[in-house]
């Protein structure tokens, strides 16, 4: 089963407020797609619609279609299974107040893995894939809260990988981090695209230009333009996109 994400004619409402209007977008497998746009443009809303994290918000309602790997996200799918296939990393690193090991093992345990050896293998692999294994291998029993902000965020990526997802949604994953940690995360994300479908929401246009293959620009709840990152940044077809990427507003 693939992990292509297809969004067709999607509108999202919070109560009476419309947050997204008629968005259609294809997110191909094994690539990095960046969502950019000013605050409140709906890019995070769209991201959280893909793995149904918006279900937690009171008054949330979606119209139109979202499919992951060809399966309708809002049509009778098991949310647990969906979130297992589509991992998420949040704006602020949010490790649980438990040990590093338990943080990474939380996902596998949630999905029924109990055998010690299996858990240890999964934890090690995820931490290696998230490029943090060497930094934490000697202190897996220590609290995750003792790590630095950048390490915490890579731990959160490892935690998401441990569930065995096919896609990763990153919601401004570096906005709370210093430049060195940011570049580590960017390198990591670039490595991960070989195996995962990656969607990253970012405020940082240089970041989008640096790491993404495709970029989608949102404004006031509408998808203004999307395409290959190089093209979108070098010759945007829309005036609004050009204004935004040249820094005239936002």
């Amino acid at each position, binding site marked *: 089963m693939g992990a292509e994400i297809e969004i067709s004619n999607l509108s999202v409402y919070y109560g009476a407020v419309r947050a997204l209007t008629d968005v259609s977008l294809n997110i191909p497998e094994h690539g990095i797609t960046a969502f950019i746009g000013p605050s409140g443009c709906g890019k995070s809303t769209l991201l959280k619609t893909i*793995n149904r*994290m918006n279900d*937690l918000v*009171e008054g949330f309602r979606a119209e139109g279609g979202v499919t992951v790997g060809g399966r309708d996200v809002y049509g009778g799918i098991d*949310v*647990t*299974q*969906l*979130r*297992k296939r589509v*991992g*998420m990393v*949040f704006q*602020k690193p*949010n*490790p*649980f*107040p*438990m040990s590093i090991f338990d943080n990474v093992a*939380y*996902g596998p*345990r*949630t*999905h029924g893995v109990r055998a010690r050896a299996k858990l240890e293998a999964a934890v090690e692999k995820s931490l290696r894939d998230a490029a943090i294994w060497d930094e934490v291998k000697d202190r897996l029993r220590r609290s995750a809260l003792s790590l630095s902000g950048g390490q915490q965020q890579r731990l*959160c990526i490892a*935690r*998401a990988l441990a*569930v065995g997802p096919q896609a990763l949604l990153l919601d401004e994953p570096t906005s709370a981090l210093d430049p060195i940690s940011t570049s580590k995360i960017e390198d990591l994300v670039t490595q991960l695209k070989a195996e995962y479908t990656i969607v990253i929401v970012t405020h940082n246009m240089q970041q989008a230009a640096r790491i993404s293959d495709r970029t989608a620009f949102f404004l006031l709840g509408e998808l203004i333009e999307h395409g290959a990152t190089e093209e979108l940044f070098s010759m945007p077809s829309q005036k609004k996109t050009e204004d935004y990427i040249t820094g005239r507003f936002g």
Partner: protein
Amino acid sequence: MKARSAALRAAVYAAAAITALTIVFLVGYIVVKGAPHLEPELFAPKYTTDNLSMLPAIINTALMTVSALLISGPVGVFAAVYLVEYASRSSRLARGVRLAAETLSGIPSVVYGLFGRLLFVAMWGLSLISGAFTLAIMTLPLIMRTAQEALLSVPDTYREGSFGLGAGKLRTVFAITLPAAAPGILAGFILSVGRIVGETAALIYTAGTVAEMPKNAFSSVRTLSVHMYVLSNEALYVNQSYATALVLMVLVIFINAGSNAIAKKLTIHSL
């Protein structure tokens, strides 16, 4: 102008001095009068009218505390889980529960005692279990409120992280939210222990005054506070009363200090 300021200052200092001296006198009096009479026979395994041992009463207090908290603990914590994690803040049920809890926490303990006598004693007689149920209702609002506050102080990012990994609500509650809220919940439990240990009016006619260890849940028991009341009422055993008062006071002070320490740790941790 100057004179008025000086008068205000004098009033404030005088009040503070009265408060401080009262506390020192009250605590000091019990300590000074009680300490010399802390004799080993007061802790003999069996109570007699000769030794006036408080050991059975101490054990009864522990039993009473554990039994009451076994009832009110899960109920209070689960109720808090429902209110914080499941119910919407504005739901009618949530408001009803809050109002009910506020009402319960205002009811004087003697009314709990009367209620317990009418309901539980009618069923089970003067007994450990009647007292435990009475105190369970009495401590329920305290446990619920502290658990609610502790759950509310758990950052939403923890819940999001858990849901994002595909965990359901129940798994999130038991694996993430409750453990993160544990110190606050524990502080509430300890506060309840303090109230149970210090309680007299709600127990004297529900659990009774038998100064022996219970044979089973339906035996009448005398807790340390009730023991203290009975002793000082009889007025014959002044020295033993002082000693018992000292033990009771120290016990409750330690319990409350423990709760404060945990609560303090919690606030530092959550910052």
